[in-house]
């Protein structure tokens, strides 16, 4: 996909988006005390967005675009997606088994996924980093971190 079609695609999307925002903001009209109520700013912005997006499309069609689309490494892209997925699983796991263990596990798995060699390195790093973060955030700064469903059910009974 070349830059021209990206510009046009983004432009079309933004045009539709700004029209949607404008229409949706209509329900807030008349809710303020003067003529510049809560609908004014979103409407004004969506009009400006629409104009900008139209220029983007025109420039794309005319072929005046300075920028070039950054190349994407296919394998790397998949790896980045995998990392995101791991992150989402980690968040779910944190709620279940608590912050500390979930964090150590997550780091261990993520480092393996990213190709870090050495079993010992991974175990050490994940253990130490999880302890450090737990220490700073929870013990020192008293930030309530998720204790996990399991830990809490053990505790309350």
């Amino acid at each position, binding site marked *: 996909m070349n830059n021209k079609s*990206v*510009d046009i695609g*983004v432009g079309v999307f*933004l045009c539709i988006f700004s029209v949607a*925002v404008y229409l*949706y*903001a209509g329900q*807030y009209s008349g*809710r*303020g*005390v*003067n*003529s*510049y*109520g*809560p609908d*004014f*700013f*979103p409407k004004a*912005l*969506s009009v*400006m*967005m629409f104009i*900008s*997006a139209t*220029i*983007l499309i025109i*420039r794309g069609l005319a072929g005046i675009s*300075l*920028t*070039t*689309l*950054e190349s*994407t490494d296919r*394998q*790397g*892209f998949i*790896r*980045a997606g995998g*990392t*995101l997925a791991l*992150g*989402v699983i980690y*968040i779910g796991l944190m709620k279940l088994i608590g912050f500390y263990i979930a*964090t150590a596990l*997550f*780091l261990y798995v*993520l*480092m393996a996924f*990213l190709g*870090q060699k050495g079993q010992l*390195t991974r175990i050490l*790093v994940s253990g130490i*980093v999880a302890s450090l*973060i737990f220490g*700073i*955030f929870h013990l020192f*700064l008293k*930030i*309530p971190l998720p204790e996990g469903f399991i830990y809490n059910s053990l505790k309350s009974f």
Partner: protein
Amino acid sequence: MDSLINLLDAFQIIFSNPYSLMYILIGVAAGIIVGCLPGLTATMGVALLVPFTFSLPPVQGLLLLLGIFTGGIYGGSISGILIRTPGTPAAAATLLDGYPLSQRGEAGKAIGIATIASFIGGSIGALIMSFLAPEIAQFGLRFGPPEFFALAIFGLTMIISISGVSLLKGAIAALFGLLLTTIGLDPLSGVARFSFGSDDLLGGITFIPALIGLFGFAQVFHNIEKMQIVPQVKSKVGKILPSLKEIRSLLPTMFKSGGMGAMTGSVPGLGADVAAFIAYAEAKRTAKKPEEFGKGALEGVAAPEAANNGATGGAMIPMLTLGIPGDAVTAVLLGALTIHGFQPGPLLFVNHLDIVYPIFAGMILCQLVLLIVGLAGARLFARLINIDTRILTAVIFLLCIVGSYSIRFSFFDVGLGLTIGVLAYFMGKAQFPVSPILLALILGPMAEQNMRRSLMLSRDDPTIFFTRPISAIFLFLAVFMAITSYIRFKQLRKIEQRVADDAAVENESNNG
């Protein structure tokens, strides 16, 4: 002259307790750690440590908190420079040039300059606070709704300076950011906008997770994608700190930015983040070589760092003299002072000079300690990015997740950060700049609320923005900045175009 004597007395009070320096040191060090962890801001650091100070004598307790404040604002720049993830919002402008420097292997130099700039800016702020507090406070009060609106518009012209290659794309990014700020409860009308019935969205787009998404998460995804192709950058070893000559050439920028920062900070409602962007744009506008900005210009690190630390002193002024905090951190300090039994306000200067001047003296001492700790640590910090990228990236990703959670203990915020991170990653692919979004998130609510508030005051009469002198001046400045920055921008594009053409010709001749 009285203030000088009081100030010297205050130093004596501070040093009469042998542990005072220790508390400052602990505060600054803890502040740097809190500041450089994404998601833990200086505001949070101070708030979280307030309970610790209950067991200390008031002066020592405040020294600890001031140390965290100073260290926290500075610490944000370290993660900004090293991993392109600002630890605090105030460091968001620093990474524009700090990160390119560290990509050239000059992380140590960048941190060194940030430290010295922070010291100079912070000292200017502390001195202005010590000697001119009452006068400055009166100036800050002259800012009403129309003035804030004009100031926000003035601030938004900085988009031109941080847009990168395409102004149009910068403008689109900024408009998108401004639209994001309209999500949530509108405090002026009590109407919930674009919240679709969700309590989380009613709270609006939280700034810190958005910041972590725009820079932290996006950078993690980028790094992971390029991991196998691009070799890891290693910090240079050996003599890594900036040379005296380099520092001397940066001094004017630092002094100017520090002063601008202190003035910006002293206006209630404007904090270190806005100060940093204003100073960055001004440094770029007046630079001898603006084409280096965004690619690792030393001024691009010095200006925002001097300004954001200058703003710390500035923000203390309205808090102490009027009981009106200049920004979020000073709001927390105000609470801490109140609980300690010293309610800030006009009477503080009458009844409690015994606490006011130690605060001033403490701010000055904090800058000195910051300089020493920062320079000693620069080498160590710079080595951090030499850790194997597979480990480092994993840990940064983890910190970003924990950081976006910690700001208000919300998994919604983590999801928000990740979503914005994915968006910012693709924006980077299509060469849409992300910094304008950040600027819009900072200035959007200020622009909208004050515009509508002004028009309520004038009962729909828009001339209110031009008939009030300060407002008119800032609107004029905004136009002036926009025009001169635009001319600069065009010149830059020409230079870059020529360079690109030369390179193309060279390539062709090489190939041919």
